[in-house]
């Protein structure tokens, strides 16, 4: 069976000729259908960049990214139809402040998928009520709490019925109480069988939700294993050291 998403020897660096910084160094990763993969690692380890590369927001330097066996990283390919199939949620929500919650959600279905307004509206309201946000449909993003904004951002991505969801440290800007409500939404997506790649600092959650955990350091996937294995008996000393530091800071 081919993987839903296959990352094959991807390389990516930023900067000019003289101060090149390698952010992804020969990264390979397979994500099966309905699988949830968590990327963990310190800030700057390349987690976010990897997600942005998958969504073609950043071009890669070398290697390839396959979605359903098709190379989506081929230079010159039209990125828009591919992005439609991949939902992405950002750490800072990236909601459109000039639009109401409902308009945020219906924008892409109406403009990109050309659904008619009433249909998109009904679908959006249904999604909102599923995530207990129905009363916020007319509100503007600035009037919502961080947790509500992030849930709206998730709903906005879900409204495109993506085959794959990329979640980039979606709880990093939230306080512990709000983190809970966003994690619940992710749990629900998991029960519905959504294929997901998450970059996260919530180790407990990563352990609970993922089928596979990848530890990244300096752009290299040092270890990739099922959560129970990676969190209890990491095979790489660097992973062990990272987890110890996380435990010491009380985050696990």
């Amino acid at each position, binding site marked *: 069976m081919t993987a839903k998403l296959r990352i094959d020897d991807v390389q990516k660096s930023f900067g000019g000729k003289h101060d090149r910084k390698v952010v992804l160094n020969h990264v390979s990763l397979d994500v099966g259908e309905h699988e949830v993969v968590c990327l963990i690692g310190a800030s700057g380890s390349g987690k976010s960049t990897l997600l942005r590369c998958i969504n073609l927001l950043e071009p890669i330097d070398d290697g390839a990214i396959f979605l359903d066996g098709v190379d989506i990283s081929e230079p010159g390919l039209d990125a828009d139809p591919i992005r439609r199939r991949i939902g992405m949620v950002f750490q800072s929500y990236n909601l459109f402040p000039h639009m109401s919650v409902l308009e945020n959600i219906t*924008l892409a279905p109406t403009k*990109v998928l050309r659904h008619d307004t009433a249909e998109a509206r009904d679908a959006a309201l249904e999604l909102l009520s599923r995530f207990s946000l129905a009363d916020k449909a007319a509100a503007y993003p600035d009037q919502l709490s961080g947790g509500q904004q992030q849930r709206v951002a998730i709903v906005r991505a879900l409204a495109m019925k993506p085959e794959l969801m990329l979640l980039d440290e979606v709880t990093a800007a939230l306080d512990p109480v709000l983190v809970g409500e966003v994690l619940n939404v992710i749990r629900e997506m998991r029960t519905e069988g959504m294929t997901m790649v998450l970059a996260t600092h919530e180790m407990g959650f990563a352990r609970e939700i993922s089928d596979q955990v990848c530890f990244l350091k300096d752009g290299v996937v040092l270890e990739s294993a099922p959560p129970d294995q990676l969190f209890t008996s990491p095979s790489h000393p660097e992973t062990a050291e990272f987890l110890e530091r996380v435990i010491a800071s009380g985050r696990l």
Partner: protein
Amino acid sequence: MTDHDEGADNVSAPSRVPGQLTRREQWLRRRRRRSATVALASTALTFGIVIAVVTSSSGWPKVKSLFFDPARFKDDFPELLGYLWVDVKLFLQCAPLIVIWGMVIALCRNTRNPVLFPLRVFAAVYTDFFRGVPVILTIYLIGFGIPKLKLIEGDFHFLGFGGAWNSPYLWGPIALVLAYSAYVAEVFRAGIESVHESQRAGARSLGLSQSQTLRHVVLPQAVRRVIPPLMNDFLSLQKDVALLSILGIVEVFRRATSIKDKTFNFTPLVAAAVIFLVLTIPETRLVDWYTNRQRKRTGGTVIS
């Protein structure tokens, strides 16, 4: 028990007696009253000094009769008011064209498509040129120069407008539109660039194309953000309409100067200044009202 604990006991209970102000509210009210009193007193004092200095100067009686002749003001003001409509009409004709043309130039400067590179160069040269040349020169050169070319003779009719092709009433406003569009384009460009990259990332990740992102996500935010500075430019346009008088268009300023030339008294110019103020002050209030409404509508806390 330490001193610290006792101190904490004193302030811990925010006693709220119904119908009475709390300690904090009383303090805030005292402070507000004091600021108002100080502001009033210092304003009165400043104006008092200015008036005293001006009226005690040796030339004041002469200036008073030359510039502030009440009888002349009473005569000239209504007459000048009759020409107000000319200024307003010129403004209303120019403003929408400036918005459209300014936006076109701003979008040209923002294109990334290599095919459209000549447009980018054009827009850059355009803004440099028209921002660099004094508006009054642009009006002279275009307003007098182009009709002299006699490219087309006769009259034009377009969307209810009409007139002679070589009339200053056509080329004057066009000169103003060309000059002001350069400024407005820069304001729009600043607005477009002020929209954070994450907004584009959010839109593109949903599958919106580059132009859809620009149209639905970037431009609405950019335009809203630049409305106050744009209004500033339009305020200045409302006044610069008076520059068209050099082409022979008779409006408030032109009429005021011709009265002055006849009577050797500057009071009509003061009256013209008052008329421009009557026109522009409501416009500034409108901007304030709009900005406040916008802020309330999209929520968020206001830091006073």
